[in-house]
């Protein structure tokens, strides 16, 4: 147990917030404003008393609340068919987890953070997005996010990026920049900048299938990517100049059109118990879904 773990788990002043955040699996909506207000009051008091450890513990709880909220909101956005909004919230949850994970590891998994950390990339992998815009720029001037001092290498303000001071995480604020380029990339550091093309629809079938089947954001699930052999005759209606169904991104005529069978991607979804319903977190296989069984849009982007 670290010092910050002791602060979060052991301090009576944080008990209500800890209990509320630990009851994550029974919550279907955002954290209420009263809890955030009380956390903020605790932080203001800790800062005025120069209690850095308490202020940091409160920051961790605020981050936990944000991560849980973003994850739950992402689920509901996706349930409503607003997949890009859900995607952005998943990304925000992931960024929040990354910042939090430097300071607090949730060693007993009291707040469901490990579940979120596993679920977010697994959900992202079911999205059809594959190309992103990524900016490159020259940072001409920047300020410290804590003290607002201009960044001058030989006169450092002493605040380190990523550290927590007075209950706030230190960042660098770019105050003057020159844009250099925007690149098309497949692995961006921020995933918001998805490319959308007029007249072309993304195929959300896989993530849609999952979200429809999940009763709550906290329901346990897994997906296994497999392949299945299908007779060539199943693809007689597929034009030779279309993408090969094997997923190679090559044209059918240049790939599997001459083969007797075509090996196609197959996703097997495995749904399990809710956390509240099982101590063992044992998974049971309920539904198998093949790629060809999922609904297809009229025109899709290659995945």
């Amino acid at each position: 147990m670290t010092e910050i773990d002791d602060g979060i788990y052991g301090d009576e002043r944080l008990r209500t917030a800890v209990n509320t955040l630990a009851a994550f699996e029974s919550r279907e909506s955002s954290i209420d404003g009263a809890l955030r207000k009380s956390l903020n009051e605790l932080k203001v008091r800790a800062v005025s008393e120069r209690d850095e450890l308490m202020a940091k513990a409160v920051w961790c709880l605020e981050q936990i609340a944000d991560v849980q909220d973003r994850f739950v909101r992402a689920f509901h956005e996706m349930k409503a068919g607003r997949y890009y909004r859900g995607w952005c919230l998943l990304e925000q949850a992931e960024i929040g987890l990354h910042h939090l994970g430097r300071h607090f590891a949730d060693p007993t998994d009291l707040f469901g953070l490990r579940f979120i950390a596993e679920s977010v990339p697994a959900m992202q992998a079911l999205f059809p997005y594959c190309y992103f815009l990524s900016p490159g720029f020259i940072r001409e001037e920047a300020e410290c996010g804590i003290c607002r001092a201009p960044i001058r290498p030989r006169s450092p303000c002493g605040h380190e990026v990523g550290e927590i001071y007075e209950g706030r995480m230190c960042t660098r604020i770019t105050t003057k920049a020159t844009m250099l380029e925007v690149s098309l990339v497949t692995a961006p550091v921020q995933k918001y900048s998805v490319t959308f093309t007029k007249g072309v629809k993304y195929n959300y079938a896989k993530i849609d299938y999952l979200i429809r089947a999940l009763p709550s954001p906290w329901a346990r699930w897994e997906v296994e990517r497999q392949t299945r052999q299908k007779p060539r005759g199943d693809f007689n209606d597929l034009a030779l100049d279309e993408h090969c169904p094997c997923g190679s991104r090559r044209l059918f005529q240049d790939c599997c059109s001459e083969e007797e069978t075509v090996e196609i991607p197959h996703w097997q979804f495995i749904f399990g118990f809710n956390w509240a319903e099982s101590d063992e977190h044992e998974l049971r296989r309920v539904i198998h879904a093949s790629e060809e069984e999922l609904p297809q849009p009229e025109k899709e982007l290659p995945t």
Partner: protein
Amino acid sequence: MVYETAPTVRKQEMRFHGGAVGPPVEVPAESPLAVSLREAAIVILPYSDAGEATGKFPAGTEPLFQRLRQSLPNRVIELAASDEDYRELVLHSVELVVATIWVAEHVLGATVIDVVANLLAEKVRSAFSGEKKVQSVKAKLLVAQNGGICEFEYEGPAETYRTTMHELLRANALPPAE
């Protein structure tokens, strides 16, 4: 880019004719920075031959400069730009680029490697980062030895930077010139 195989390392020796070899950087000879660079044991260098990015430093160079100064308080650690001219190139890529570092003595290379490795560990470390968060790193170390500069280039996962670079440095320790 995620590296699943061993990192790529490259060693290149650049020979010069006699005398001590300073950091490969051009600044006005009479400027205070030039004086400081001549005394420096370690110099952080900007991008070179990189189009509009030439003369700029990779994002995150400023904390690296602070850490090197803290690690070696009795040596002169320099940045090859004045505070007024210091600019960073910010690329939103999953690949981490570490500024090229020149060291005046072979023995300082090990300290630099540890400082860089610790910073990289902090950057990629998070209790909730899964396998997808494995970050790749590009870094270059220039070591002045025996009248030349030995260049060690690393490209690979952040996790193996420390051990790979230490091994490379050890394997290329030259005997002192006669």
